[in-house]
């Protein structure tokens, strides 16, 4: 009996740790964008390295959880849901990392006048992911509050979309950006950033269904 409870406590810790890594990736992302906008490339590269390590650790934890879930036949009713949820969150880290990698490879020139919008967007992205992690955490411990957190996710995702639209409008209406290539590149970066919150939104939609299945 002690062994069973020991295993359960370890699983709880692993899930908590996994969610922490998802949250951490968003926090690193926000810091990295800020450093990029401040032209601090040395610190930006450190952040890029950090997010890579976070993803590796998250993958390791996810595999560990999967093995335990199936080997010990835990939560048979919702095992598929939990696994899908963890996989979707892995995609979220992946999209976040790729967005930063694109900054590192392409090094887009972001004009001063739209830097606040980019900063604003990264802050909203962090908030979206933050609330999503709270929602997923609540799925494991207190399903009654999942909807509250989900509503916040949807709210911040909408804010990200609004900033994305603003950036696109400004980029294509201003005459301060000279070439079409630059305009398209900036639009591309705004869209790739917004993709992070879109993925968060889709995880949130899945979560709503999983909550219904968890009800008695």
């Amino acid at each position: 009996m002690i062994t069973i409870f020991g295993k359960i406590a370890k699983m709880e810790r692993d899930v908590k740790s996994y969610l922490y890594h998802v949250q951490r990736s968003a926090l690193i992302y926000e810091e990295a964008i800020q450093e990029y906008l401040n032209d601090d490339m040395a610190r930006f590269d450190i952040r890029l390295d950090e997010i890579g390590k976070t993803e590796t650790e998250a993958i390791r934890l996810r595999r560990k959880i999967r093995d335990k879930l199936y080997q010990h036949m835990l939560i048979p009713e919702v095992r598929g849901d939990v696994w899908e949820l963890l996989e979707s969150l892995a995609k979220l880290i992946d999209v976040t990392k790729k967005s930063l990698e694109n900054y590192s490879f392409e090094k887009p020139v972001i004009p001063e006048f739209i830097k606040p919008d980019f900063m604003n967007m990264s802050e909203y992205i962090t908030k979206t992911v933050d609330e999503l992690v709270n929602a997923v955490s609540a799925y494991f411990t207190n399903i009654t509050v999942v909807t509250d957190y989900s509503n916040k996710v949807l709210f911040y995702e909408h804010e990200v979309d609004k900033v994305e639209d603003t950036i696109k409008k400004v980029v294509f209406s201003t005459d301060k950006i000279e070439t079409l290539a630059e305009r398209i590149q900036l639009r591309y970066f705004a869209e790739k950033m917004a993709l992070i919150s879109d993925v968060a939104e889709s995880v949130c939609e899945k979560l709503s269904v999983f909550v219904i299945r968890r009800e008695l």
Partner: protein
Amino acid sequence: MLTVLFFLSSGIFLGWSLGANDAANVFGTAVASRMIKFTTAAVICSVFVIIGAVVSGAGASATLGKLGSVNTLAGAFTVAMSAAFTVFLMTRATLPVSTSQSIVGAIVGWNFFAGIETDMAVFSKIVSTWVICPVLAMFFAMVMFFAAKTYVRNSRLHLFRQDSRTRIGLIVIGAFGSYSLGANNIANVMGVFVPSSPFRDLNVAGLLTFTSTQQLFLIGGIAIAVGVFTYSRRVMETVGNSIFTLSPITALIVVTSASLVLFLFASRGLHDLLMSYGLPTIPLVPVSSSQAVVGAVIGIGLAKGGRNMHLATVGRISIGWVLTPVISAIITFISLYFMQNVFMNAVYQ
């Protein structure tokens, strides 16, 4: 000895079919949903069915004896065989069947054949439990459902912890359910052999007496255990996957409700306790675990607001409950005629 074993074979067969079918009512959902391994369920079920049968089987069996005391071994053989055949027929016709109702119908059939008047007081007491049993299980399930819902909402238990507790609950309640099943339903399997028991009381080291009835019940219990090990796996998978679409927690509630009902109708201790306080007693009658489970499932359905309830299925189940005792009585009457006039065996004294 061979003759004795031959005549007991119908009871043993009935025990086997009870183990094959009714163990699913206790562990079906747990096994089908992979919450518990089949081997674990089978071992727990077998051990506790035997304990329940030997320790607490006498109460319900005594009531069955009052309905009709089948006083020859050949008569008891025919009654048990007819009941088993009815169960087989009804199962073939895919109608839900209760071994308890089948054996009661068979005893009434024997009464008719032997020209013995059926004690209507006992008969009505037994028939009333066929209604009370599912209703009580339904009530228990509803109360437990609301209690569980409140607990799950307020406890903030982690999903993994909730899962492990449900698993432990299914094992503990499964053991209790198996004990109650053995205590209550052994009367169906071996009850008719009690008046004509071929065994003698055994004194174990001068400390306790192993009565002839307990010896009979031990054989019946072992037959049930064999049924559990050899054939219940498929039934458990079927019951768990097709009839129930319950979550592990609601499955636990269903098994707890059904087990409680079986226990109430088998516990001599509770019966004596209520009597000592001058309270109305619960009759010690063999009731159907299937009826209790169906009642509990309906209770869960109602507690959830009555959505997705298959009323046609409920109607079909009710038809099975009415038909079983009638068909069993008719088959017994005809079988007794053949046993007496073709095989030349006295079926009553």
